[in-house]
């Protein structure tokens, strides 16, 4: 039986809202006198839906929306608004409220709004539960040599890592750095065959040459193959370019004091620093990076 938490500092208005909704025999009701009281109750036992007034002492309806959104994202909130509070209602919707019903139209609109929001919320909960059952996610991208695609692809990986709660924010950013480095290496050094020495000498010429080669064969038809495999135990990333490959042993160690001033090799060094395992294929055009779940 879905539970509705009715939040209003006016006992009359709480009773009024319940009166409209209790025609539906399948609903149960809880009550809170303001946002703070509601937040406390939701923390102990989250209801299926929160129906709240906007203006209340201690914690307003808008503050309650933000609190619920942050701490209980699967609990929907419907606002009851008085005349003249439309602007705050818009803010509340932007902050994550599911809907709002003017108090003057409670009798006509509240029951159907609650029913619709509960149905949507039920579907979202099922989807969230289903996603908890996923044991491995796998994506494969085939990218052309447009560097502006790389931040978008890495952002996608970061979103998935966050959604699956695979590591904390610092760990996620470290992974993002390693992925951007490997994809940029594949694009510039692999597919377009431009060495980092040119970037060291003349960065404008470096990027201009990259633009030229993106339109010329054999570089133009080369792609970057990027595979992502995420599970609760580990994250595996494979990046393969279509260039001639390189010998990782030939890359100077940028942390050697003799090479500190050089630009080359730093991308690979960061990849090795931020991933748990890094492997190259024999041809040197493919890198596999593994990050294991922190225990």
């Amino acid at each position, binding site marked *: 039986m879905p539970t509705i938490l009715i939040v209003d500092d006016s006992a009359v208005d709480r009773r009024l809202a319940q009166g409209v909704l209790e025609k539906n025999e399948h609903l149960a009701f809880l009550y809170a006198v303001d946002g703070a009281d509601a937040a406390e109750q939701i923390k102990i036992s989250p209801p299926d839906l929160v129906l709240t007034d906007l203006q209340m002492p201690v914690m307003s309806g808008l503050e309650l929306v933000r609190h619920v959104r942050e701490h209980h994202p699967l609990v929907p909130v419907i606002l009851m608004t008085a005349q003249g509070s439309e602007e705050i209602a818009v803010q509340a919707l932007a902050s994550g409220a599911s809907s709002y019903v003017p108090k003057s139209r409670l009798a006509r609109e509240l029951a159907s709004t609650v029913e619709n929001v509960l149905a949507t919320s039920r579907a979202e909960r099922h989807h969230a539960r289903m996603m908890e059952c996923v044991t491995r996610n796998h994506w494969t991208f085939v990218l052309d040599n447009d560097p502006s695609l*790389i931040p978008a692809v890495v952002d996608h990986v970061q979103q998935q890592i966050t959604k699956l709660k695979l590591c904390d924010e610092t760990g996620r950013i470290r992974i993002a*750095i390693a992925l951007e480095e490997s994809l*940029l290496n594949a694009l510039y050094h692999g597919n377009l065959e431009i060495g980092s020495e040119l970037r060291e000498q003349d960065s404008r010429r470096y990027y201009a040459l990259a633009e030229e080669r993106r339109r010329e064969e054999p570089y133009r038809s080369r792609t970057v193959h990027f595979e992502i495999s995420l599970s609760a135990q580990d994250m595996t990333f494979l990046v393969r370019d279509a260039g001639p490959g390189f010998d990782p042993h030939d890359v100077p160690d940028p942390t050697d*004091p003799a090479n500190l001033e050089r630009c080359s090799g730093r*991308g690979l060094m*960061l990849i090795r620093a931020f991933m748990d395992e890094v492997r190259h294929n024999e041809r040197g055009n493919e890198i596999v990076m593994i990050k294991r779940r922190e225990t």
Partner: protein
Amino acid sequence: MARVYKQEGITIVEIDAEYDSLDIVKLNDLGQVLLGAVAQADPPKVLLDMGRTTFIGSHFLGLLIRAWKRLRDRHGELAVCHVNEVCGDVLRASKLDMIWQIFPDRDTGVARLRQPL
């Protein structure tokens, strides 16, 4: 992209929050501002404020190395401040913390850079 100003005679380059990735266009824009500030810095001492920078990569490090070399040619100094955990990791992993001083805040960095070499 970046704001350039002076504090007690030291050139400060404060990177905007929009620089949060290895976006090449943004990096080139930042490079122009940084290298321009380095060229005009008198005395040749530049403090890079990274308080709003989320993360950096090798292309960013390459840019800093170029800026540092130009300052060094003028017997100057480059230092960084307000470095978050991840950016600090990148600098330490690169061993670049051995050649650039990292300060917790701008005032400490300025005070140190004001001292003679």
